[in-house]
């Protein structure tokens, strides 16, 4: 049974959710009664089901419907002086937050970001000033705490104007750390951040965490790879198996190179342009696999060109998963790279067909 958000029942006058009997979402451990109202208490422990869901969504499973109900929650045993942490209603975000709050007594106000994480939602404006003001009023945050401080994740700052919140509501915004794992230390230090807590990182582990979705999005290339390997390996003579295997290694491998090796090697690949980094990696892969497979000059050159195009395009798309690209740069890159990418792919395929049909090696 699902929890009913506040407002469905007009008799509800205080923040929280109606208490419902029956099966609860895994993250609700019970209810905290406040003046006849029941606020769900969330558990800081993730169940196996939570962890499985969080893993799956990294691969795109249920990605557009991975949400918790927006509203007010409690963690631990919060009171009128406990901090209020504001977050997004993407369940991966919510799980990340609560898992770090073992032993912390706090209120959690979940904004309706349509199941999008804090940073992206702030960019879109759904983790924004208007939504926060609406939730302050609707959840009556002023009635449940005696202080007037809201702790927001720092990455909400592109969407929420703290000066505007202070002007319009009685609350003031304190920008918490970027990562939920720093919240206990941030609270213990009296809501003080270190520079390290302020910085977004994009280390190997961070890059690989967002890689699965790139791979999941690249399935059309995988499908294309099988088709091209089959067609490229024709005619079905004695060499068919060998050609099929090596063209498949080259083409499917380029999809893996773009989705997995590209993010892993990002800082090592030449230039700052993602498309150029990708073209370099793709060409290298096409060359290595055609040399190893002994595919000859014609087919080899075809694979270098097409692999460079595919990895360049997948790499270009990784700008959206990265933490440091700006719009003018990405715009310039798109404008300069799309024609060469398409040309390289067309030339590669044409050369491949030519070399197979006319037996050019």
């Amino acid at each position, binding site marked *: 049974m699902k929890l009913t958000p506040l407002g469905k029942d007009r008799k509800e006058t205080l923040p929280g959710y109606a208490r419902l009997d029956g099966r609860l979402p895994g993250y609700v451990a019970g209810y905290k009664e406040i003046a006849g109202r029941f606020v769900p208490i969330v558990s800081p422990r993730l169940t196996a089901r939570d962890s499985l869901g969080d893993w799956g969504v990294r691969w795109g499973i249920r990605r557009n419907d991975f949400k918790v109900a927006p509203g007010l929650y409690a963690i631990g045993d919060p009171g009128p002086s406990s901090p209020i942490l504001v977050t997004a209603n993407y369940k991966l975000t919510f799980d990340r937050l609560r898992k770090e709050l073992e032993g912390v007594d706090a209120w959690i106000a979940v904004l309706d970001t349509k199941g999008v994480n804090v940073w992206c939602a702030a960019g*879109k404006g759904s983790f924004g000033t208007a939504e926060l003001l609406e939730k302050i009023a609707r959840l009556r945050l002023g009635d449940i705490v005696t202080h007037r401080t809201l702790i927001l994740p720092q990455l909400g700052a592109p969407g929420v104007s703290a000066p505007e919140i202070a002007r319009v509501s009685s609350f003031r915004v304190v920008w918490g750390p970027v990562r939920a794992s720093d919240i206990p230390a941030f609270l213990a230090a009296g809501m003080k951040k270190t520079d390290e807590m302020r910085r977004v990182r994009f280390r190997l582990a961070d890059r690989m965490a967002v890689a699965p979705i790139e791979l999941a999005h690249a399935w059309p290339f995988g499908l294309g790879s099988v088709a091209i390997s089959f067609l490229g390996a024709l005619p079905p003579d004695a060499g068919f198996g060998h050609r099929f295997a090596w063209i498949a290694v080259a083409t499917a491998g380029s999809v893996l190179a773009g989705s997995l090796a590209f993010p892993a090697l990002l800082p090592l690949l030449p230039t700052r342009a993602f498309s150029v980094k990708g073209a370099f990696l793709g060409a290298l892969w096409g060359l290595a696999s055609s040399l190893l497979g002994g595919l000859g000059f014609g087919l080899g050159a075809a694979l270098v060109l097409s692999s460079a195009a595919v990895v360049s395009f997948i790499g270009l798309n990784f700008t*959206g998963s990265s933490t440091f690209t700006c719009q003018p740069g990405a715009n310039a890159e798109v404008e300069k790279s799309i024609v060469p990418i398409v040309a390289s792919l067309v030339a590669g395929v044409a050369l491949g067909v030519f070399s197979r049909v006319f037996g050019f090696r």
Partner: protein
Amino acid sequence: MTEFGYIKNGETLSIRGDTCTGCGACVDVCPHGVLGMRSGKAEMLDRAFCMECGACARNCPFGAISVSAGVGCAAAIIKGKLGGGTPSCGCGPESACC
């Protein structure tokens, strides 16, 4: 390596020193350490790492910072060019693909 640089980083970011009161709000919200305080005013430490997210400008109480904020996402830009309109993350109002 702690910070990555990209292309055209921070070209639209500017601080008006005469309007800045040195409250430090911008320094607090910058995720890339682009801004710092010197002699009681905000200043740009390293424009090359600015991704133009717009957090500083939105949170400056005195309107002393301007930056043209946008998403550095090629897929969004391609979609914007194909379908018209400004590039934005996601595939629709209810979507999380960002």
